[in-house]
């Protein structure tokens, strides 16, 4: 049985209001106070769209690109961009470059902890910024594709197709990482000092997309989003998506759970919202700026988007011993509000907290998406297919 609501809006109606410049749009931080003071029903009547934003390291990201043909034709089998290896086991001129791929001559962790100065994420950032990138490709040569080598400088404009294609973005909740061993370790959660002397945490909390729609009721295949400064799309659940996680009474998952697969054209993206990263001792990755609009179709969506940092619990996990050994235990659950306060207490020990997601940038993204919608430049879409989340 479908639930009945006091407030019932459709995406079509909201889009009409956007087109007429009448839609009421707020960011997810502003919505917290609105729902708190007016209640969910009033909030649902008043607000049409809540914009979310996040700017966080998202390792499962990359670029699908086509280099075009320059006779004699070529079926590339090995491809590099700025000496970063790409995957070329697809059609003749297609390749994929992932953000965690280091440059071929990178010393990696041979001198520990390595610097990982340049990788796939940096290549993509350079392309978005309009910089010149060195393309190198090799092939074994066939009757239809005789060319065996090519090497030239290219920019984004020279690529007939350049599509950001991210298998797993927007993790709904994540671990807060500490290190219980007696030496500093270098992880994808950043450097963790010995004996729990720092606790590193990610996500944008109450601004984060999937905390504002915890059951993915409005986000599905075909949802139009802000992706790195341009328009992109959700194309389904991401890899490792967990559809039925343990949740708190507000529906917020208690650990890493929902994920999204994302795509978008590189053209029009802004290098401010896509940054190649070097994690000392760990590797290369990239921060991806994503903003998702949540249509306030009814009071239930108003309630969900009213989520505050205090409503979000994150598991604290040991990355020194537990994580590498596949032990999933949580040392404690702390709220996002506590994490943002600068310190948490775990088993009686006070630990300074260190954010990895830029709150400043996450808010900027939510506000940018808000202004696009207010100006009528961005319309909402009806998902073609749901992403399962119970």
């Amino acid at each position: 049985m479908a639930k009945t609501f006091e407030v019932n809006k459709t995406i079509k109606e909201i889009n009409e209001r956007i087109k007429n410049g009448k839609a009421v749009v707020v960011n997810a931080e502003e919505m917290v106070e609105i729902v708190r003071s007016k209640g969910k029903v009033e909030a649902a009547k008043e607000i049409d769209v809540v914009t979310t934003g996040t700017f966080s390291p998202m390792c499962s990201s990359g670029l699908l690109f086509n280099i075009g043909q320059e006779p004699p034709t070529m079926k590339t089998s090995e491809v590099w961009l700025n000496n970063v290896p790409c995957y070329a086991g697809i059609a003749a001129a297609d390749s994929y470059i992932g953000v965690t791929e280091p440059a071929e001559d990178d010393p990696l962790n041979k001198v520990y902890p390595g610097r990982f100065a340049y990788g796939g994420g940096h290549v993509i950032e350079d392309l978005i910024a309009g910089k010149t990138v060195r393309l190198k490709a090799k092939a074994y040569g066939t009757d239809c594709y005789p060319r065996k080598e090519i090497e030239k400088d290219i920019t984004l404009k020279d690529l007939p197709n350049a599509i950001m294609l991210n298998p797993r973005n927007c993790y709904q909740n994540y671990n807060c990482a500490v290190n219980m061993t007696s030496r500093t370790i270098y992880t994808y959660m950043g450097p963790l000092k010995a004996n729990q002397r720092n606790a590193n945490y990610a996500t944008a909390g109450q601004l984060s997309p999937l905390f504002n729609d915890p059951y993915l009721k409005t986000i599905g295949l075909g949802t139009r989003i802000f992706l790195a400064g341009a328009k992109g799309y959700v194309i389904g659940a991401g890899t490792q998506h967990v559809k039925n996680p343990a949740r708190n009474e507000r529906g917020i998952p208690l650990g890493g759970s929902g994920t999204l697969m994302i795509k978008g054209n590189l053209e029009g993206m802004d290098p401010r919202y896509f940054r190649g990263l070097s994690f000392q001792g760990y590797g290369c990755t990239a921060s991806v700026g994503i903003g998702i609009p949540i249509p306030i179709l009814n009071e239930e969506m108003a309630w969900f988007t009213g989520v505050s940092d205090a409503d979000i619990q994150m598991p604290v996990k040991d990355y020194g011993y537990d994580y590498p050994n596949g032990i999933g235990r949580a040392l404690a659950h702390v709220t996002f509000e506590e994490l943002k306060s600068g310190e948490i207490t775990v088993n009686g020990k006070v630990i300074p907290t260190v954010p990895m997601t830029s709150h400043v940038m996450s808010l900027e993204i939510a506000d940018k998406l808000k202004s696009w919608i207010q100006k009528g430049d961005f319309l909402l879409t009806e998902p073609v297919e749901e992403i399962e989340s119970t």
Partner: protein
Amino acid sequence: MTENKNFNKIVHLSFPPTVSGRPVICNLGKLYNLSFNILKADINPRHEGSMTLEIMGPEEEFHKGLNYIKENGIKVIPVTQKISRDEESCMHCGMCLAMCPTGALSLDMDTRKVLFELDKCTACGMCTKVCPVNAMENDPQEKENRTT
């Protein structure tokens, strides 16, 4: 803060190969009313050396002591010129906070921006290694390593 008694400044010293064999720094305490704390040192005979020093004492003595160091052929660079932040590049994520030993890098609780207070910086260089976008720069050479 009483300016005369508690004057305290962090400086970076560069020793040419010719002076690295002679005692100079200890004279800050012997000849002047200063005390010092060595934060970082890399001194080798017949090589160019470097040292990061926190000097404490009356301001007048500090300037006399600094002149004495300079007269002895040692180059004095204020630490504030050693570490800098590329404001365009910094995305205010906060990862550097874990490694900063002095609190020179801190989080503004209202704006959630990362603050960088030069006068607290000892130029240890930890932030330059942890910053994922290379926004914290040690010296111009560091930056060049990032190019492709």
